[in-house]
Structures are given as C-alpha cells and as structure tokens.
C-alpha cells in the first residue's frame, strides 16, 4: 500500500506477558492502520514545575466552575425573582443566572480543554484513509446480485403482475396522501362573497345596515373627534370588529387640512374607474391600513408631508394623491373607504372598500 503502512510495526503476539499496555495499544493502532509518529510529554520529566503549574491552573478552573454553579443554585433559590415594576432586585435575576451558569460552564469547558491541550502528551498520528472505491469485481458482483434479485421476482417476465402492481399501489399511495391534502385544502372562493374581497365594513356583516367606524373599544366616532392633522385607527362597528377576525378591516381615518383635502378630493375623484368619487366626507378621508404590498399596517402618517409609510418594507403612499405609492415595493393605491355621517352624527361607511384590501395575489380582479 503506502510507504508508511507497516513500515515500523510488525504484528506482535498480544498474549506475550512481556508486552506493556502501550505495546498492545500500538498493536491495535497497527491493525487500524494508524501509526503514532510523535508522542511525547509536554513536560521535562515527571513532576516538573511546569506540569505542576498547569495542574494547579486546571484544578482552579474546575473549582471555579463548581463555585459558580453554586452561585447559580443559590441565586436560583434565594434571589427575588417575581417580576416587579420599576428598578428592583428582580431585574437582576436573569443576569445573575446567566452570568453564573455561563462562567461555570465556560470554566469547565476551558478546564477540560486545557487538560487535553496542556497535560496530555503531544501526539501526531497518521491513519490511512482507505477511501478507494470498491474494486471492479465487487461492483460487478453487487450489480449482478441486484439484477438477479429482479430476475428472481420475474416482474419483467410477468407483465400482468407489473400492471397490477402499478394499478394497485398508485391508488393506495394517493389514498395515503388524500387525508393530508384533503384536510388542509380550503377553497378560498367557496362563499358567494369570499372574505378575501370583503371586510367588516361590508353592510352584509351588519344585517345590511351601514357599518359605523369605531375605536378599538367599539365606541363610534364623531367628526370632531379627530383634529385636523390627526389620524385615528378605526374598526368596523360590528361585534368583534377590532379583533383579528377582521384582520383586513383596520382603517386609517385622516382629518386633512383644507387645501390638502382639496388636493385629495381632486385626486380621488379623478381615479380612472371613478369608484372613489364622493368617498371623502368634508376634509376626512379613510384608507385601508393594510398595506397593498405585504399586509403590514401602513400607519406611519406624516401630517405635514401627508405621506403614509409602512414600517415593514418602507412603501410610501401619498395621501393627497389618493394614496398613490410613491416609494418602495408597493404597486397599488391603498383602497379608500367611502365615508358619510349618520343621523346621530357618527361616521359610517357607505359601502365596503371598492377595491380588494391587503396584499396582491394572482386572481385579484
């Protein structure tokens, strides 16, 4: 084989009583095709000063590890740990646990590593890889054996069996997959009015009555609740309207300043399919809070520049241009909620959003 193999070692009789333990180890190494070529103590003679120092240091590390493990245990038990408001001792519970356990484990690690690195003899061993592929004969035999197995089964000679296996097993495989797929699959378009295209502001969710705009506690909103230059997150005034059941419904009601409102009205009325015509009420406008890019709440409203920023991917919508995206990855305007005020003076949505709320998808009309 190679030059190193067996160059220094001859087989020995391991039962020879004259052999030392190391001789037997070397015989084992020889059998595993390993040769130790350097194996020497790192110290000058036994009990050298240097060795004693290393042993002392390692022992110190083990003791340190134990000490900090004790610190961990004691603080785990006695340190006040119940959360309290303000700056209290319990704020240091987690740090103390972490530091004590961290030091304990790290010291233990370093102790073991130092032992392996500094105390054990310096060693260089060489092992042969034997990464050669199997011989051609071996490959041939295995290949022929596998082919013979196929011959034994005789599928090729028995076409009926072949067809029957295919026809028999394929449905079984499908049957195994069916519950998983069938259980999970839901038709997103199954309802006559799929939720994807509708929000809680659709009068249908409210017994065909117009839906009020409400705060998260369900209280309705009067126009003078929102100051000029202000905005408010509003929800459909239906049961559970502020919960995640209506995750597409959160809307931003903005009270624009007069000239901004005028610009917005012109832009919204000039929308090319005309669906936003008359959707503003006075200087108030409401846009879906759900970003048309990835569905985050686009709610960073800048009252002077009238931009609405989405904090997830930085799409920016210009409210005075009918919420047109002017920066970032969003491609579609935020849908506008048509507003009015009911007899009692509260905001209502005169209909659902005229455009699909939320991120885009393949079949969005």
């Amino acid at each position, binding site marked *: 084989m*190679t030059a190193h193999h067996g160059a220094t070692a001859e087989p020995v009789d391991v039962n020879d009583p004259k052999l030392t333990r190391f001789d037997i180890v070397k015989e084992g190494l020889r059998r595993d095709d390993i040769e130790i070529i350097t194996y020497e103590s790192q110290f000058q003679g036994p009990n050298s000063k240097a060795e004693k120092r290393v042993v002392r240091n390692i022992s110190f590390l083990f003791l340190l590890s134990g000490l900090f493990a004790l610190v961990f245990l004691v603080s785990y038990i006695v340190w006040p740990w119940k959360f309290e408001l303000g700056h209290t001792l319990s704020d240091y519970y987690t740090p103390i646990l972490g530091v004590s356990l961290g030091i304990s484990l790290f010291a233990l690690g370093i102790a073991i590593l130092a032992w392996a690195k500094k105390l054990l*003899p310096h060693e260089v061993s060489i092992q042969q890889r034997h990464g050669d592929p199997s011989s051609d004969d071996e490959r041939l035999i295995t290949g022929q054996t596998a082919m013979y197995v196929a011959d034994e089964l005789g599928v090729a000679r028995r076409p009926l069996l072949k067809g029957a296996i295919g026809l028999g097993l394929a449905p079984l495989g499908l049957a195994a997959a069916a519950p998983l797929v069938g259980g999970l699959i839901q038709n*997103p378009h199954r309802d006559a009015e799929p939720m994807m295209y509708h929000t809680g502001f659709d009068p249908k969710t409210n017994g065909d009555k117009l839906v009020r705009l409400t705060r998260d506690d369900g209280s309705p909103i009067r126009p003078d609740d929102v100051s000029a230059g202000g905005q408010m997150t509003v929800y459909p005034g239906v049961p559970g309207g502020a919960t995640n059941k209506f995750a597409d419904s959160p809307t931003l009601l903005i009270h624009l300043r007069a000239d901004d409102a005028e610009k917005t009205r012109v832009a919204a009325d000039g929308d090319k399919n005309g669906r936003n015509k008359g959707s503003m009420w006075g200087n108030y406008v409401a846009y879906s809070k759900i970003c048309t890019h990835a569905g985050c709440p686009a709610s960073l409203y800048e009252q002077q520049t009238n931009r609405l920023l989405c904090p997830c991917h930085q799409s920016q919508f210009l409210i005075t241009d009918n919420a047109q995206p002017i920066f970032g*990855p969003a491609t579609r305007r935020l849908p506008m909620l048509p507003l009015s005020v009911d007899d009692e003076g509260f905001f209502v949505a005169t209909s659902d959003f005229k455009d699909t709320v939320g991120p885009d998808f393949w079949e969005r009309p």
Partner: protein
Amino acid sequence: MKRRKLDPAEATANFAKGADDRFQAATPLRGLLNKVFPDHWSFLLGEIALFSFIVLLLSGVFLTLFFDPSMKEIPYEGSYPALRGVEMSQAYASSLHLSFEVRGGLFMRQMHHWAALLFMASIVVHMARVFFTGAFRKPREINWVIGVLLFLLGFFAGFTGYSLPDDGLSGTGLRIASAIMLSLPVIGTWLSAAIFGGEYPGELIIGRFYIAHVLLIPGILLALISVHLGIVFKQKHTQWAGPLRTNENVVGERMFPRYAMKQGGFFMAVFGVIAFMAGMFQINPIWLFGPYRAAEVSSASQPDWYVMFMDGLVRLMPNWQIYIPFGDGYSIPPLFWPAVVGLGALFTLPMAYPWLEARKLKDTRSHHLLQRPRDNPERLGIGMMALAFFTVATLSGANDVIADKFHISLNAMTWAGRIGLLVLPPLAYYVSVRIAFGLQQHDREVLAHGVETGIIRRLPNGKFEEIHQPLGPVDEHGHPVPLEYAGWVVPKKMNKIGALGPAVKGFFFPVEAPAETPVSPAPIGSAKKEEISSKR
C-alpha cells in the same frame, strides 16, 4: 452462603465480555477509540452549530412544558402589570407566564432564542469555511447539500419558533408570510387558505406552527444532522496540506482521549457563552410588543437576522408588477420575485455548485486535502460575491434602523441597497480574485527567491540589494533552487523559520524561566515514544 466480595475490575471485564458476546463490539469499539481526526481551528465552527442545536433541544423541551399553542382569546391575569386585563391569545399569555411566573423561565426562553441565533450564525460561518476551502468537492458533495438543507430547515425552524408567542412583532411577520404565500401565481390563495385554515389569521396557525416547530422540523433536523455527522465519520475529515499529509491519509490525534476531550470542553464553552448571553442581553422582549392585533405595528419591525436577507430583498425590490391581461386579468405581485424566486435561487444555486465547479474544471478525482482560498481565485470570487450579496440584503433588512440611528434618509438607504446589491457583488468578485492572485504570486516569489531578511547589502558596483534567505537548497552559484508550491503556508518572515527566539510565554507577565535552547525537531519517524503507564 458465602458472600463474594465484588471485584470492580472483574465485573467490568465480565460486562465487556458479555457485550462482545452479544454485539461483537470489541473490534468496532477499538476502531472508534483509535480513529484519527485532523486538528485545525476552522474545523470547530460546525461544532458550534451542533452544540447550539443540543442546547436548543434541551431548552426547547423545558419551554414546551409551559407553552400552550392555543389562539383562544382570554384576558390576561398574570403578574405582568402593564398587560393585566388585556385580551390576548393563550399562546401569548402562556409565553408571558413562562417568562414571569416560572422561576428561571425567562432565562430559559432567552437561552433558547440566543442558541437559535448562534445555531444559524455558526452554520453560515461553517458553510463559508467549507466553501472557501473546497471541502465540498468530491466525495463530499452530498454532505454540502445536506448542509444547505440544514440552513433552510433552521430558517423555517427559526421562523416558526419566532411566531409561536403570537406577540405583536411576530404577528407582523406572520402577516408577511401569508402575503408571500398569496404572491405565488395560480395557487397563492389556495396555499394560504390551506396553511391558515381559511382566511388570515384564523385560529389554527399557532397550533400548526407549534407541531412543525417542536416535532416535524426538529425531527428532520435531527435526522439530517445525524446523516451529516455519519458521512463525516465515514468519509473521514478533510485536512490541510502540510508535512506528511497526503490525499490518502489523515494526520492528527486519536479520537480518545484528546479529541473527545476537546469536543466535550468546547461543548461546555459554547453552552457557557449561550448562557452568558442569555443572562446579559435581553432578547425578544415580547411583553413590550403586546398581543398580536392586525391593526398594530411597530417601526423597526424585523425578522430574526437569518431571515433578514429575505426581508431586505423584499424591501429593495422595485414596484414591478406583472399584469396578465387574460380573462378577468391576473397579476404577479413584486413580492413574489425576492421572497419566492429569490429564496429558491439562494438555496438551489449553492446546492448545485459542487457539480458546476467539477464540471467546469473537468475534475472527477476525490479530494481530501483542502485548498487555500487563494489557490482557487474563481471560487473565492464567487463566494465573496455571494457573501456580498447576502450582506447587502441582510443590512437592507435593517435599513430603517440604520437610517434612524445614523441619521441617513430612509429613501437613501433603500437606494443604496438597490445599487449596492448590483454593484458590490461584482466588485467583491474582482477584488478578491485580484487579491488571491497577488497572494499566490507572493508565495511563488518567496519559494523562488527566499525570505526577505531585511538586511541590505551593497554590491561592489554600488548597487544595493536585500539578502534573501533561501527556503531550500541552493545551486552552485548560491541561487536558491526554486521550490514547488505545496498548497500550504509559505514562511515569509525570518522568525517563522527559527531566526528569532521563541515568543515569550505568559499571559499577563512573562514566565521567568529561561527559554529552553531551541533544539531542532526530532527526525520524523524515529521520535521517542513515551509510555504513560506500562503496567498492565
């Protein structure tokens, strides 16, 4: 009956005999004890991932004892005052419970989260080592592919775990995940409906993520990690070139005791660092985020760092939407390209790389010796290109935080990312290839002319020249005989070839003992072999 005294040595021998009778364990066990592993610091990077995975399993089991993956809304009644009475899902309430009412629970949660970050970070560092040294070459291509899959699985394990507490931050991430599913052409709405059990967010997703996070993904991870290690064991570890080292052998130390002790000690060190970080650095303070509400969001909403590259690509993507004017009209939103196509490409291209490189180099041999990065400039360049791309994408995933804290315009950050994503990778390729060639050339020069000594000599004709110390024999004119490059470090300073005394020992102050006079190393092969204890 006479009681026999138990002799421990005899009992052990009997046990061993019994084991071998039944399992024929003696020979394979000896092979295991004796197996030789090469030693280099960069071979330990993968171990960090392995050890953090063990910490993840340990701390994760603890967390499952207290976590309740239910999305039922309940009012919070726990000990955290700022949320008392707030309606929240049981998943979020139980996450708060295990943070505040379980002794040491917060510590375990933070340990789990830091271990997850470390797991992914060490995978990336380990993959970079394997890539740049060519350790993925035949016969190790499959193990490289498994490694890429491990990153992908870690990515999903991390994302599902991050989503479980159902807090305000992770809920935002979940919403983006649903948008990514929706962006798939044709099947988008169907896929999202299948995963969320209807319309987003529904009431099932946390339970489904829980089973994926604690059973399915860790199960596959564990299986793949076992296969990964098994293949390393079977194929034996690669090694650097160097004296005695060939493509046919492994030079190093035996598995027991030294190598195993190093592994054990390093495990403790990794465990210790995770525990230390879990105590010192607060991570994911879910109590500040509140329960997930579709209307609430925070500025600086980011995923964990290993998902940030994807989020960064999504942020940088221009608003290009493809409209298909067919029937009612269909569209492919811009989210699809970075999040689905980008993620797919970022995983399939690395998987295919070993075969692409072998094909290009027409290389069908098996390689067990590593290549220094400089020795394959093209690979170095491609790797640096990928790293530059990944880094720009990852930084862009946090571009709002960078913009805010360094007072840069957010829009400028986005544009810098867009331009950087196109410009920096080729630049990284060019620069690293040039550097690799430069280093190669310098190695060859030193081999041909010797080490620069720093001694200037004046020739009789008045010319000054620097004396070079040849590394090998010289010819009859005193000129060094050019040496063959061996794929390993070329000494370039005089003290590397023993011209100076050894470095002073001692960390804080020098160890006073006089330095031992340097002795030339014992000739290889005839070194004295010392026995530990020869008594049998």
